[in-house]
């Protein structure tokens, strides 16, 4: 936006003008791009738009006599070639490309084509579609330091281009560069000092090996991969609710840290579920293809979304592994690359047969999903399960030992005693929704009277106002039996007694009330089930029991309560312990199963397990022997006083263990995975990509012109994955090493790392690319080895200083006559600040977190019913996790990340933009995260940085930039510090305010004015261009 920044490229055409004449023309790199760009739209692979039946992507057509009698290209004779006549013509009727087509060939390009035709028009396919073969490594250039083949290739090109490499960068620069590159975090002063002190030959390698062994390496590699995987924490479309797929993100980290070979990394993500006896980890890996955006918008049509999801997966697979823009072929044959529409839908077919539903249900875990227990959770679960098995056996043994015959199998039940069941104490029953004029206010002793348990509730009403708190919707309903009474306890404040107390009961309706005191509560003026008058108010200043017969408030046996209201007119009342009193058996009676059966027929509370109640509902003499055994078992466990006494403890243990197992289960996270339907869904070619326009039926198959299918590979995703990682695949290895190269040098050897097709850019160093690709595969797709190879090169270790001459010759540093230098990624900028401040919490993995974000970003755009329409910031440690764990809401991604070019993760992206904007300046200047980080770094400066101002400036500077300040820098920061110190001394209130940024505590041992002044210095340091740049 706004002021645009671009590198002024004076770019003298040193080779185009001079070199072109003495070099051969290369069809693949020089001619094919021109034909593709200017001609293929009408004379290319797409049959539907091809004009005059001429295609210039194939020699057999280009060299053939056309219906017109002309031949487009006559090798050796540009003068006889119709193509040359047309492109060179100035006659608008003849001229190609047509003057109104917006496509043009300039004179140089036309000359190049002429030269190619005259030289024999040698034809070759597009370079990237031929399997790479390992080229010879060029000889080292004398006097230039080389650390291996990478340097030899780079130097050979530099030599040709009459450029020379830079010297090795200073050690401080180097360790900062490689630490940021390999871990995404800055080097500590201690690490810098260690490296400076290590004068051995292997000093650099020691650093590299240490970093490659760090767990932070995997995090950093994963962070980059997550852009390609379009990982996010929400569904991405419409409601954009939360989705749980972070275990996949953690899988990626683990995979890089374990240096999983890239071919396995590929196979597991595309088809881990289809491997023989897949492990949980392999299934989690398939989350890669569940990261796509999904919807559940009302009114959407399933078929349309099944199609869209499959298309997204093909496009993503294609971009990430093939470097091909397959998406074009969803609507028509590819315009530039030989991928046909049919081939596209054959790839589509691999992803068209999942068990997933088109509508994600806005659910956290739209199936298929798997539970992903941690090792601790697994251990716990195994342990509890073993204990449970043992207890179960004990119980079974005790039951078997207790032989039972009913002493009174026919006697009719006599007098009953009473039993109390408490429904409400310290909390409301499960499933119930608390409501009221004001919320339920639970209070505790000793400040408040409490009747039982730990809490009571309190309410104060004014004057004649009727106020209440209540709930409805309890899932375990309170069952009313014969002669049941309802009770609750109240404590009336002697200083402020109420006028009336009223209990109300809900059995679906609020039609059951009992009142004490003045008749001023609900339904005043009557004395019936709707409002039974119970007499005077009870005594104040002590706990009193309110009790009423269920029948008096119109609740016959069999009624079920789901709600209860505590109502008062004015006054202050504490309420506690409420429930029912029902009748119960004497111990003697309990010794008879038949007596218990008769009792249960009358009494409903507490409710029995449904399966036991069912048995009781069967007449005694109609029960099967199995039913009798079951019933007797329950009876022995829970009723008969003798057996029950023996079983109480084991049963309690059993309950506890079951709950513990349940708790572990509930805490286990789940993640989305891939799973195929048993019967594949038939894929079709879809005309113009419209799901309603089905054409020819197709089945899963790979585009064989790239590489043959792997022998005996299954016709499913596993076959696709194996095809991608076969040794001779022309694209997978090249595309992969190119992406890693881009990570370190800022630009890939092929700049368009997402497009290796005919329209993509040519590689700057094709032989190096091929050499790296072949070498990578031969190493067993060893990623750490590859990374090490890069950072060990002298090319990587060059100084990134640039002269105007080099800048003019190669503004983008494609030739690497200097070291890499570019702005850090969004996440690294924030993580660096957190690390420098000492705030960083380096826990790996887990559910995503919500650090600081300006208020009111989600609400103005979020759907009201979305569970991500309101942002609730986390607290404590979660504010300081690495940025890769920041909750990624895809329709409103984290602003400080997006400002620094992080993608919104709606679609696969393998190359980030690197802009330089005023909004970035504002983030670093004013985002609380950075202001707080500056303050915490300043605390470190004072506490760890020595005593003098000089010393402290050194510490601060070296912490941030690894290098010491020069004299100017030192002086400048010292002056700044002194100036700010005097400003804050004169205005300590400002210092306090400035230090208050963020939620981490301020070190109150330090002089606030001095701390604020140092914070200004560190704030400046965090804003330096050098700080946000890898140099």
């Amino acid at each position, binding site marked *: 936006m706004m002021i645009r920044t671009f590198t002024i490229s004076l770019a003298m055409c040193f080779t185009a003008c001079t070199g072109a004449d003495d070099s051969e023309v290369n069809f693949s790199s020089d001619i094919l791009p021109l034909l593709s760009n200017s001609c293929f739209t009408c004379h290319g692979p797409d049959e539907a738009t091809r004009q005059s039946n001429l295609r210039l992507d194939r020699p057999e057509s280009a060299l053939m006599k056309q219906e017109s009698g002309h031949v487009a290209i006559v090798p050796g004779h540009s003068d006889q070639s119709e193509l040359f006549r047309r492109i060179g013509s100035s006659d608008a009727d003849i001229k190609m490309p047509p003057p109104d087509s917006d496509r043009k060939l300039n004179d140089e390009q036309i000359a190049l084509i002429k030269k190619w035709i005259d030289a024999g028009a040698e034809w070759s396919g597009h370079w990237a579609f031929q399997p790479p073969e390992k080229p010879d490594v060029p000889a080292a250039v004398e006097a230039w330091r080389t650390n291996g083949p990478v340097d030899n290739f780079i130097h050979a090109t530099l030599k040709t281009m009459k450029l020379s490499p830079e010297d090795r960068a200073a050690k401080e620069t180097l360790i900062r560069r490689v630490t940021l590159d390999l871990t995404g975090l800055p080097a500590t002063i201690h690490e810098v000092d260690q490296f400076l002190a290590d004068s051995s030959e292997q000093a650099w390698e020691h650093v590299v090996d240490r970093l490659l062994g760090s767990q932070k390496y995997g995090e950093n590699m994963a962070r980059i991969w997550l852009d390609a995987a379009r990982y996010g924490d929400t569904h991405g479309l419409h409601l954009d609710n939360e989705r749980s797929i972070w275990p996949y993100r953690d899988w990626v980290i683990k995979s890089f840290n374990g240096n999983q070979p890239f071919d396995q990394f590929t196979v597991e993500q595309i088809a881990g579920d289809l491997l023989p006896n897949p492990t949980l980890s392999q299934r989690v890996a398939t989350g890669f293809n569940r990261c796509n955006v999904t919807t559940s918008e009302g009114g959407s049509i399933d078929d349309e979304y099944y199609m869209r999801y499959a298309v997204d997966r093909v496009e993503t697979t294609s971009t990430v592994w093939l470097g091909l823009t397959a998406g074009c072929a969803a609507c028509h044959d590819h315009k530039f690359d030989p991928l046909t529409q049919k081939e596209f839908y054959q790839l589509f077919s691999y992803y068209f047969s999942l068990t997933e539903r088109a509508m994600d249900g806005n659910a956290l875990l739209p199936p298929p999903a798997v539970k992903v227990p941690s090792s601790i959770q697994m251990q716990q679960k195994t342990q509890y399960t073993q204990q449970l098995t043992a207890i179960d056996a004990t119980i079974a043994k005790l039951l078997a030992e207790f032989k039972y015959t009913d002493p009174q199998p026919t006697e009719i039940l006599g007098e009953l005693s009473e039993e109390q069941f408490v429904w409400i104490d310290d909390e409301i029953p499960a499933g119930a929704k608390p409501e009221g004029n004001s919320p339920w206010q639970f209070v505790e002793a000793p400040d408040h009277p409490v009747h039982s348990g730990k809490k009571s509730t309190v309410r104060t009403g004014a004057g004649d106002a009727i106020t209440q708190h209540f709930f409805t919707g309890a899932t375990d309903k309170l069952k009313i039996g014969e002669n049941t009474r309802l009770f609750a306890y109240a404590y009336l404040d002697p200083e402020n007694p109420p006028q009336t107390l009223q209990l109300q009961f809900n059995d679906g309706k609020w039609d059951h009330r009992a009142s004490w005191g003045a008749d001023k509560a609900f339904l005043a003026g009557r004395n019936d089930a709707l409002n039974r008058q119970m007499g005077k108010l009870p005594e104040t200043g002590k706990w009193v029991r309110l009790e009423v017969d269920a029948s008096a408030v119109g609740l016959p046996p069999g009624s079920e309560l789901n709600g209860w209201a505590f109502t008062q007119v004015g006054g202050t009342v504490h309420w506690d312990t409420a429930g029912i009193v029902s009748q119960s058996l004497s111990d003697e009676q309990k010794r008879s199963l038949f007596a218990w059966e008769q009792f249960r027929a009358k009494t409903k509370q507490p409710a029995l397990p449904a399966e036991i109640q069912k048995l009781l509902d069967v007449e005694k003499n109609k029960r099967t022997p199995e039913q009798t055994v079951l019933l007797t078992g329950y009876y022995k466990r829970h009723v008969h006083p003798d057996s029950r006494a023996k079983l109480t403890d084991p049963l309690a243990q059993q309950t506890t263990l079951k709950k513990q197992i349940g708790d572990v289960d509930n805490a286990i996270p789940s993640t989305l995975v891939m799973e195929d339907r048993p019967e594949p869904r038939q894929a079709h070619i879809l005309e113009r990509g419209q799901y309603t326009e089905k054409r020819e039926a197709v089945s899963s198959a790979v585009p064989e012109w790239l590489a043959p299918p792997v022998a005996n590979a299954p016709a499913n995703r596993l076959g696709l994955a194996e095809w991608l990682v076969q040794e001779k695949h022309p694209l997978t290895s090249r595309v992969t090493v190119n992406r890693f190269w881009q990570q370190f040098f800022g630009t890939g050897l092929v700049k368009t790392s997402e497009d290796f097709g005919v329209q993509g850019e040519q590689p700057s160093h094709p032989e190096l690319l091929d050499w790296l690709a072949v070498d990578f595969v031969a190493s067993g797709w060893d990623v750490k080895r590859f990374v090490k190879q890069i950072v060990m090169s002298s090319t990587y270790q060059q100084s990134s200083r640039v002269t105007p001459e080099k800048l003019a010759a190669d503004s983008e540093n494609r030739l690497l006559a200097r070291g890499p230098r570019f702005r850090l990624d969004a996440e690294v900028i924030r993580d660096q600040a957190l690390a420098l401040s000492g705030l960083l919490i380096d826990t790996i993995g887990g559910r995503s977190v919500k650090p600081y974000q300006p208020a009111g970003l989600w609400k*103005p755009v979020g759907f009201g019913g979305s569970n991500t329409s309101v942002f609730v910031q986390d607290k404590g440690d979660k504010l300081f996790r690495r940025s890769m764990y920041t909750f990624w809401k895809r329709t409103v991604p984290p602003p400080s990340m997006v400002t620094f070019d992080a993608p919104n993760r709606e679609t696969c992206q393998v190359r980030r933009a690197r802009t330089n904007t005023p909004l970035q300046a504002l983030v670093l200047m004013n985002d609380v995260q950075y202001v707080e980080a500056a303050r915490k770094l300043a605390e470190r400066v004072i506490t760890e940085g020595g005593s003098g101002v000089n010393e402290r400036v050194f510490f601060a500077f070296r912490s941030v930039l690894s290098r010491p300040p020069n004299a100017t820098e030192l002086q400048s920061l010292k002056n700044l510090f002194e100036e700010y110190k005097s400003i804050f001394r004169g205005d300590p209130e400002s210092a306090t305010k400035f230090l208050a940024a963020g939620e981490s505590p301020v070190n109150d041992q330090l002089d606030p004015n001095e701390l604020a002044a140092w914070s200004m210095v560190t704030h400046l340091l965090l804003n330096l261009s050098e700080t946000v740049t890898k140099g």
Partner: protein
Amino acid sequence: MNPVRESALIETRRHFFGRTSAGIGSAALASLVNPKLFAENSADALNSQGGISGLPHFAAKAKRVIYLFMSGAPSQLDMWDYKPKMNDWFDKDLPDSVRNGQRITTMTSGQKRFPIAPSIFKFGQHGSNGTRVSELLPYTAKMIDDLAVIKTVHTEAINHDPAITYIQTGSQLPGRPSTGAWFSYGLGSMNENLPAFIVLHSTVNGGFGGQALYSRLWGSGFLSTRHQGVSLRATGDPVLYLSNPDGMSVSMRRRMLDELGRLNAERFNEVGDPEIQSRIAQYEMAYRMQTSVPDLTDISDESKETLEMYGPEVSKPGTFAANCLLARRMAERGVRFTQVFIRQWDQHGNLPNDIRRQCGIIDQPCYALVQDLKQRGMLDDTLVIWGGEFGRTIYCQGGLTQTNYGRDHHPRCYTKWLAGAGIKGGTDYGKTDDFSYNITENPVHIHDLNATILQQLGVDHERLTYRHQGRDFRLTDVHGKVVTDILS
């Protein structure tokens, strides 16, 4: 394998690898190092305003655009598309011959009947052509001679997310740049103190709600992120992170930036990276924004007459009225593209009530904005656009009574209006059938509409392209025809 292909492959391999020692053609290498040698539309070739060179393609009628976006899809049947015959059709079924088997959303596809719900609102005739406008829009009706009303806008998408993504980015799927981002990319900025593309969100009755919006709607897709729209907020910092931290005065900030600039310059002298110079400039612009944005949002210099014109809500930040006034202030300050969103038009039920509320909110401010621009002589070079992502059905969703009904999504025809910047005022364009179901005359696809918007800014929609993944992408994909009939 195809024998021709196989032989070609063998050929190629021989040629290709036979040449590896000679390496990549040095001409090609030079073109990589200096992309301008070969690239016709390289993004690096910038014009004076920071847009791409060669733009505008022709003289622009509009310097800027204000897009009043009615998210959720307002009912054309109750506001614009007058269908008196429908009064005789109350509660009768939509004839199959009209629907003609076309797909409808799964919210109503399960309904047993599709009963016609005629609009309960009266339509008066206004302006020199006697254009029909619903009683819901008394203010808009007054300025009908300034507007070109298109009743035949249509789209393929039938649900909000894909439809709004489609009209804003030219594709139903996420990933493409939004209209404003295309303008920023193609034409650059007209000022040095404010973003080229600003987005405003409007409250309804003090709150938000309704169909969701997505940052992709003002995102930059595959264009550089510098082109994405910047949200200007009514609460908190108007632009994110604009205010200095508590305790840091403007003079302290200035002092810090001076020193920062000096140290950055020192580093530039050392290492020669021009990105450092650029960053120095960005910090200076950030500093300027700290003044220019508050100046933009402070409306205390507006006259009483102006404020009254926008209505009483204008003084409440975040309302549609306040946002319309801000849009005018941005237009004055050279913001290229301003998009004002207001939600809650998705009226599946209780439509009469809800649409009264919505129209009550937008009618006067829309009128005020156009008149305000006109009075200041800015309507001539400001394009104002009003409308949503699709229309609504003639048949009722849910219960139908004489006074209440709801309408489902209808993509086959709906109404939008344009004003200013070379748009022929008083135009009533396009005809639909008696059911406002199908277009009978002059269809305008949303790609056509976008092509027309680009045209007014001096951009040939077929020539504003960006090479991404080997393909030249356009806002209008491979479609779009300028609607010349509505241009003066």
